[in-house]
């Protein structure tokens, strides 16, 4: 059996995530950290590495790094130093990257994941440290030269290093998605500016000793991290099963072909010659400063999930769905300030509101109807003044067109409210039953699912303008006679 050899092994994976922080200025200089500007316009003599220039730490970078550390239950180091990581590359003008080596600001944290089957998985965070990005090199624009844009050089990053706790491509995907969600909820990274290196090894199930690992560099999407892991795990098992040996190499992943190739062997590994950065004085944080960040942390997806499922009684599926997108979750939070019909609130957002956003290809911040108006709409349905399909199909689209009037005003103007008296309803019921005498007989003989047919007829006769709960009750009573 050719498949079974793969079942004998388990993958051991650790991820290093580089997340660009959404500060205004760069990590160690005042030029803009903005994205999308003309090449080489966001630069300074510090970014360019001119002799005699001195870097200075952006205090926001420290705050953001601590936030991520607190969110992932890390210990926060008070006594921080910076280090130089030396290497030559054209998009790194100084000849070194300013990073943290032996004193990462956050250590020993963890993050909890939920697998698709509902089981939990905890991934340890080894460390989070602060560093800077390099510039951008373009190799395919010119025959002889590489073109260098230094706008990105010096943009602040945090590197989040996980323990080798991840066991599959699926878990890697969950971990990356969760980290991205936390970064977005903290409002410290837009979540799109993430790059990932994956350290991958395999071992026989039950073994405690780690196999030789390969590091796959510069994966730029969750999907590509998963593809690289799937390919690499299979490759390593094939090599070992064929009697071979895994060399500890640095690999490149080609997103087009989906395969990895050797970038550097262990012998060619860079010697970065880390040493303390003498240009940046140490940063000594006060415990009170860290505590104040901890006290002012925004609510994170994990806490909100507990609140949504516990306090508001939503299903795990609904809660996870709302929390997928921070802005949507905030809209829900705003909505339930105005209504206690939590389930209805969730349904309206995940149903009609999301459909509208998808159709128009817009974000929730561009959704024209305020949360308080949606709350009024929910109250209108709950009080029996309009039925829900009428509300969804007619009133909701009108509310998008007319954002100044209340749902009740709009419904009144468009004659959508239930204005049918119970006498009228009785009339419609009698009419409907008179139309299908044989069906009535069948119903009375026990075919109770025919109730829907009669109800449909009643709704049609009333043109939808009746309270279905009330009508259902009256209909059932009429059939009992």
């Amino acid at each position, binding site marked *: 059996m050719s498949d079974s050899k793969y079942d004998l092994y388990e993958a051991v994976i650790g991820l290093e995530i580089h997340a660009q922080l959404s500060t205004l200025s760069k990590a160690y200089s005042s030029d803009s950290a903005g994205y999308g500007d003309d*090449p080489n*316009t966001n630069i300074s*003599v510090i970014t360019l590495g001119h002799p005699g220039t001195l870097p200075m730490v952006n205090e926001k970078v420290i705050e953001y790094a601590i936030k991520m550390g607190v969110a992932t239950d890390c210990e926060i180091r008070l006594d921080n130093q910076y280090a130089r990581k030396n290497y*030559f590359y054209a998009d790194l003008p100084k000849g070194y990257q300013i990073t943290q080596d032996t004193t990462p600001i956050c250590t020993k944290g963890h993050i909890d994941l939920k697998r698709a089957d509902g089981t939990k998985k905890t991934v340890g965070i080894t460390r989070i440290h602060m560093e800077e990005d390099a510039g951008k090199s373009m190799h395919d624009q010119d025959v002889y030269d590489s073109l260098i844009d230094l706008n990105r050089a010096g943009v602040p990053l945090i590197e989040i290093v996980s323990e080798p706790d991840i066991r599959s491509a699926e878990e890697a995907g969950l971990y990356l998605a969760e980290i991205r969600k936390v970064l977005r909820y903290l409002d410290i990274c837009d979540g799109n500016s993430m790059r990932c290196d994956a350290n991958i090894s395999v071992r026989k199930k039950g073994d405690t000793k780690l196999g030789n690992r390969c590091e796959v560099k510069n994966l730029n999407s969750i999907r590509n991290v998963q593809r690289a892991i799937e390919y690499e795990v299979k490759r390593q098992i094939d090599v070992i099963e064929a009697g071979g040996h895994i060399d500890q190499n640095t690999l490149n992943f080609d997103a087009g072909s989906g395969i990895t190739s050797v970038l550097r062997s262990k012998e060619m590994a860079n010697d970065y010659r880390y040493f303390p950065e003498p240009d940046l004085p140490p940063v000594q944080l006060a415990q009170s400063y860290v505590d104040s960040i901890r006290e002012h942390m925004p609510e994170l997806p994990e806490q909100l999930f507990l609140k949504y499922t516990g306090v508001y009684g939503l299903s795990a599926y609904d809660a996870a769905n709302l929390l997928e997108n921070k802005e949507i979750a905030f809209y829900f939070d705003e909505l339930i300030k105005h209504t206690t019909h939590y389930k209805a609130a969730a349904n309206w957002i995940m149903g009609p509101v999301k459909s509208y956003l998808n159709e128009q290809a817009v974000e929730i911040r561009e959704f024209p109807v305020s949360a308080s108006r949606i709350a009024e709409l929910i109250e209108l349905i709950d009080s029996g003044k309009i039925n829900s399909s009428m509300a969804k199909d007619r009133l909701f689209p009108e509310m998008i067109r007319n954002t100044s009037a209340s749902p009740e005003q709009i419904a009144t103007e468009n004659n959508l409210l239930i204005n049918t008296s119970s006498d009228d309803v009785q009339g419609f019921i009698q009419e409907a039953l008179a139309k299908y005498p044989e069906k009535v007989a069948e119903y009375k003989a026990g075919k109770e699912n025919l109730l829907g047919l009669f109800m449909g007829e009643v709704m049609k006769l009333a043109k939808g303008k009746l309270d279905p709960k009330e009508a259902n009750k009256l209909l059932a009573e009429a059939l009992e006679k």
Partner: protein
Amino acid sequence: MQINQQLIDKIAHLARLEFNDAEKIRIEQDLNRILSFIETLNEVDTSSVEPLIYMSDEVNVLRKDEVIREISHEEALKNAPKKDSDYFRVPKVIEK
């Protein structure tokens, strides 16, 4: 510490410098002389002295997150040996 040809090759590579054999022999002799001279310092007991990293006692020299444009695009490119109107240009480098 003893300097040998192997170490010179390594340091030269790290500094992206190239030397011929005659130069390397001269460098080996020079460096060994310099190092043995400096090794005199080893006679001093420094076991209770912290390594000196910073030239002042300052800590927490931080800056607010504010954008200041100090130089223009043109000024940035001015001293580059090779450039066009947008980019610095360097000999093609593929592998990182």
